[in-house]
């Protein structure tokens, strides 16, 4: 998906629209209803002494916010410095907050009836951050629990 593209679900499709994001080599889904904006991560200011799951400060449209690091939260090793990344700003919190992911994939629709518990072979951290798993094409997608991510 191109950066800053409007997050518009396809009304003809069934199920709840999710934005696919890639963290490490894993594919996750974020419910569109909780997302504000997606942007390419340009400048980020690291904050020494901040909680480990905080990536740093980012600015979206002039608003400075704290951005969480999806890799750390999901128990994956830190990304290489140079790799391009994206920041997704989340809505419905008392303060502006973002989530740093490696890449942004397509929007897909998940029928709630098809959501299953996360596979038992997933890492504990991975299991703790999802509400469940669903199949998209051939891949098993973890549906991220946004509140659990932020309020951990």
């Amino acid at each position: 998906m191109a950066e800053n593209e409007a997050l518009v679900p396809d009304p003809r499709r069934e199920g709840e629209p999710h934005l696919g994001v890639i963290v490490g080599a894993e594919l996750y889904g974020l419910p569109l209803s909780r997302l504000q904006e997606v942007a390419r991560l340009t400048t980020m200011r690291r904050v020494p002494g901040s909680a480990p799951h905080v990536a740093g400060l980012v600015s979206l449209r002039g608003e400075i916010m704290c951005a969480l690091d999806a890799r750390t939260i999901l128990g994956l090793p830190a990304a290489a410095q140079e790799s391009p990344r994206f920041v997704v700003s989340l809505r419905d919190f008392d303060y502006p907050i973002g989530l740093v992911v490696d890449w942004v994939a397509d929007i897909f629709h998940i029928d709630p009836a098809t959501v299953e518990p996360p596979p038992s072979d997933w890492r504990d951290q991975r299991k703790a951050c999802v509400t469940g798993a669903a199949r998209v094409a051939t891949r098993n997608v973890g549906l991220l629990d946004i509140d659990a991510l932020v309020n951990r």
Partner: protein
Amino acid sequence: MDTSAFTAKFVEEARDRLKSLGNALVRLEEEPQSPAIIKDIFRDAHSLKGSAQMLGFTDISEIAHQLEELFIAAKRDASVVDARAFDLVFRSLDLITTRVEELAQGKTPPAGAAADPGTKPEQPARQARRAKGGQSLRVAVEKLDSLSHLAPEMVIQSLKASERHAELRRIEYSVARLRDRVRESRLAPPTRTRIAELGDYADSLEAISRRMRALVTSVSDDQAKLTLITEELRQHVIELTMLPVSTVFDTFPRAVRDLSRSFGKEVDLTMTGGSTELEKRVIEKVADPLVHLVRNAIDHGLEAPEERGKAGKPFAGSLALGAEQRGNRVHITVRDDGRGIDPAAIRATASRRGVATAADLEQWSDDRLFNLIFEPGFTTRTEVTDVSGRGVGMDVVRVAADALGGSVRVQSEIGRGTTVTLDLPLSLALVRVVLVEANDEVAAIPTAAIRRILPGAPASRAGTEEIEGESVTVASLSALLGHAPRPRQPEEASVVLIESRGNRYGIVVDAVLEEQELVFQELRGPLGDEVAIAGAALLGNGDIVPILDVQALAVRTAKVGPASETSMTSSQAGATGPGRVLVVEDSLVAAEMHRGILSDAGYLVGVAHDGVEAMELLARGDWNLVVTDVDMPRMNGIDLIVNMRLDSRLHHTPVIVISSRDSGDHRKRGFDAGADAYVFKGEFDQETVLKAVRLLIAGREGDRR
């Protein structure tokens, strides 16, 4: 001379010209390269400019002049008038049309004499409807007028940018043509004529570089002017949201009357400085703390009439509310002539509550002790009254002051009274900071908390420094922020001496960059408690800079302590250059601009923010020249010159006044006071200013010899 008859004529002519200009533009859009139409437009703009100039309608003539310039460029290269330029031209015509119609209605230039607010009573129905649409703000008409006056100036700047663009394109074309010719001649065998052509190329190149130089100068002037306009725009926008302190003060006469009755006290209330303006959001947040302070003063501070009588004081206690602007801050004071605060009582309470040992408390200064009354739950009163004395209230004051980026201070004398001062920023969003660098990262320290900056101060191994005869704990910023130890040591470091709530400490930074005014943004969310950051701001280049929390850093400095890893060398003696120039300017942006222009030209530049600071700097150092603004807080530019001329050492130091006021009267006042040159901001041109600086310094050196 009565120009009304001429004005009517002008209006008539201008309407015709505008109509024909409008038509011609529409035709040009259909037939973009037509030289005939471009010529028509040029002629109309030119005539319009001439007539407007004659009648002194400078705003119209200035816009028409820029239009004329644009179409002179278009005569040579029609592609200059692209879609963007079209928009601009139409907008310019709209502006002129508005002005002409104002003239038709008998308004005189400048358009400042807008509608008298008194003649247009708001209709209640309309007001109600508007209130539904969200928050509204009442704004004085004059404030809006000064804002709207900037519109033509901005259009003029945009037109100029189009011209520069056109010139750049022409230069680009010349360069391309020259390149092609050189290429051709390289392919051909070298003959005598070919070699002779080299001379031609050199001439062409010379012409091109001349034009480039001229373009660089004009672009740099444009930039200077744009900076001034932007700064003015910013100031005006801030002013729009400013309200007088009286909005809060006016509620007090009644409240004080009620409170004094319920406490059985007699109170004389006086209020000063109610017209001092503060940003609306600051005013709103300061109202509650003020109520607490007033209640406290009446309940705790002022004695009952009989007690006052015994002490030989007038029966009625005096309570004074005051507001005063100091630079970009406002001091609000609540002063009573009551019994004062007894440091011994605070010591006793503090010792009982285990704040510190009695022996330690003996060593505390009164300032530090008084600060304790802002701690939650701290009260020296034994009985609890209905309204105050439960130890709630004073901590609310400090919390509110902190949230606003301000501070609160108590001065008291037993038997004489207590003064509480709230030191608040004029506006909430802007914070003046000094940018520093540590570990190759930039951080911002609020200027309000900085007492001094000591460049290259000598290091002390113990982590304490003797600064101003006081020993102060010093720690490096990298260590305070928890950076990894650096691989290399900076060659030179500076110590920023911070003062916050009576604590003094020093922070060692690798470099002190500059002072800036930034838009403060609060940071919330899961950052953690370990970050000593009060907020963040965006720099001009889009970088995020954290604004340090000087309170949290005070605590850490005490823990981290010695900056042993840092070695400092003593600062170098003042380098020599063409001269030392002191810029006196309260607007940071303008000061920064002047500083930039002068230091680019090789001058060593110092900056003072008002006349008082300038006199201090002048007394301490040797300055070759002073560049000063006129309107400044504390001591204005004219008074500064008068004071300098009274001082035998500064009597001969040349002064250039740069002012936004351009009347003969203002110029005269400047020269009468002893200024050597007077530059109008609207005509600011860096070449002229630099020339004046050069000549004045050279002249004065000549005198000395």
